[in-house]
């Protein structure tokens, strides 16, 4: 139970963890490693000791070629995966202290995900897609729909509430996905190649939306191999061979 409480209330436990200067950073990683064993038994070190700190409200881009370990890093930051060694604090909460349900709660309340391939439920309306994270928070149906509608309006899709993904353009689908990431008022948006499947105009629109959200106070962590997209971040973290090569 205490684990759940911690997962549900990162803000309070952040105070408890005693950071000297008020609000803890969004992410604080020390010596993160992640190794996989492939089917053949070969051990692969995807991350070989990453330490970094991303503050509240920052706009950072994690850049690197494919195979650099940037996706692994994003999975760790997004609490979708656990590090092999090293510590990671998300909003001041050490993820090692959380069980799987605790991690799920942390993802649900603190992090909004935006994926390259949108990951929308195909036979579900934009409204219900956006409302999905609130289902796992136990929010009532009426409130879910109301908040989902507000989120869709915020991304400029107030007129597409009942449309299904198949009835929308790629850019609209990604905006639905962003609305879904936003609906739970997260502290951080984790975007994995958000423009990767979009044309230039739609990509520009999505980037503009992310920047506007960042100005509203949400930290945005962008994972990309596209230098042009990465240049939009105020900070670029270059990852290569499982290590941070450059952080500017």
């Amino acid at each position: 139970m205490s684990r759940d409480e911690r997962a549900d209330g990162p803000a309070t436990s952040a105070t408890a963890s005693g950071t000297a200067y008020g609000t803890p950073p969004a992410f604080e990683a020390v010596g993160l490693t992640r190794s996989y064993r492939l089917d053949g038994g070969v051990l692969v070190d995807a991350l070989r000791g990453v330490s970094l700190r991303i503050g509240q409200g920052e706009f950072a881009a994690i850049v690197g070629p494919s195979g650099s370990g940037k996706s692994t890093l994003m999975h760790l930051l997004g609490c979708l995966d656990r590090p092999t060694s090293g510590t990671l604090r998300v909003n001041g909460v050490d993820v090692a202290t959380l069980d799987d349900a605790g991690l799920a709660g942390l993802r649900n309340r603190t992090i909004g995900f935006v994926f390259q391939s949108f990951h929308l439920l195909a036979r579900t309306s934009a409204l219900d897609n956006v409302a999905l994270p609130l289902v796992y928070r136990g929010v009532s149906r009426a409130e879910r729909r109301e908040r989902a509608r507000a989120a869709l309006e915020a991304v400029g899709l107030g007129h597409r509430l009942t449309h299904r993904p198949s009835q929308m353009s790629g850019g609209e689908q990604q905006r639905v996905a962003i609305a879904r990431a936003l609906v739970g008022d997260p502290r951080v948006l984790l975007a994995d190649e958000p423009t990767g499947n979009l044309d230039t105009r739609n990509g520009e629109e999505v980037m503009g939306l992310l920047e506007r959200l960042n100005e509203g106070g949400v930290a945005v962590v962008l994972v990309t191999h596209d230098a042009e997209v990465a240049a939009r971040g105020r900070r670029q973290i270059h990852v290569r061979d499982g290590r941070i090569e450059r952080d500017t």
Partner: protein
Amino acid sequence: MRTAEALRMAVEALRVNRLRSMLTMLGVIIGVLSVVILVAIGTGAKNAVEKEIAGLGSNIILVVPGQVGLGAAPTQSRLDLSDVAYVRRVVGDPSKVTVAVNSGEPVRVGRVEVFATLTGTDENMPHVFDRPLRRGRYLSETDVDTRRRVVILGSEVAAKLFGDVDPIGRQVTIAGVRFRVIGVYETVGSTFGVARDQEVHLPVTTAQRLIGLPRINGIAVGASGPDEIEPLRRRVVAALDARYPGETFSAVTQTQLLGTIGTVLGMLTGVLAAIAGISLLVGGVGVSNIMLVSVRERTKEIGLRKALGARGRDILGQFLIEAVLLTTIGGVIGILTGVGGALLIQAVSPVPASITWWSIALAFGVSAAVGVFFGVAPARRAARLDPVVALRTD
């Protein structure tokens, strides 16, 4: 709250794969349907037999020579009318004791001939057995004492021999001897394969002379109440054992018959239900199979839901509810068609079918349990999926 949501999702998932859901349900439907129908037939058979036994009359003890039971060799009767008089003294109330001498003979009227079961009995028969008359009268004491050649016909014999003509006062010929019809019984159906409407009753004394043996086949004693049956049975058996040391007599009561037959038919019903249960089990395996397919197909969706904050148990619940929904909807359809089938069987065939509430409740409960049991493995597989791996799946 979350359960309502999971239910909505499950309904949606089943609706999307309508054909597949229907085919999966079909296995459960057939299983439940066969449970309901077979139990209905088993119970119907039991009820029918119990009704037949009860139709004999109430509180009857049948005394026969030898051992009664499956595989026991028939015993040559050594009882005669003096033994009936003896049992009457033991019982105390002579009107509650009657007698049976059985034989089979053709009964003829003109050119029409019917094979009938001849039963020699006496004036006390209606006091012991429940055998209403349609017309005429029962045997009297004088009929027995003076060996009158009179008969009472079972309804079927009467119909075959006389058709629409009133048989009272008319003549029938049995083994070359003429008899006068004094009564016709009401239709009562059959007991243990004995077609009682094909019986012809005549005075026991007349019957003995016709057959040529002074023996009787059995004595029937009527007890005054259900509590009287067992003590009376013991008293009669003890008295006969004392009169004929070294010989065995059996007295069978209705309760014993009901008990034995009830046990046998109950077992039969159980076996039928178990066989039907196997098909329900096979239906359950189908559910398990299709749920595994469903989990594999929706791996990406599961990954996404987990990324958005679904816990393992949320996913587990979602798939379990889906499986249980499949089997319970199948169960309800199976129950409805099963009840319909049982009613149909009852209406168009001689097979008795009696729908029991316990079999319906059981079938429903079992189908829900089958959903849980066979849904757990796929649902756990879904719940344990690693979100990173699941999201990467294509």
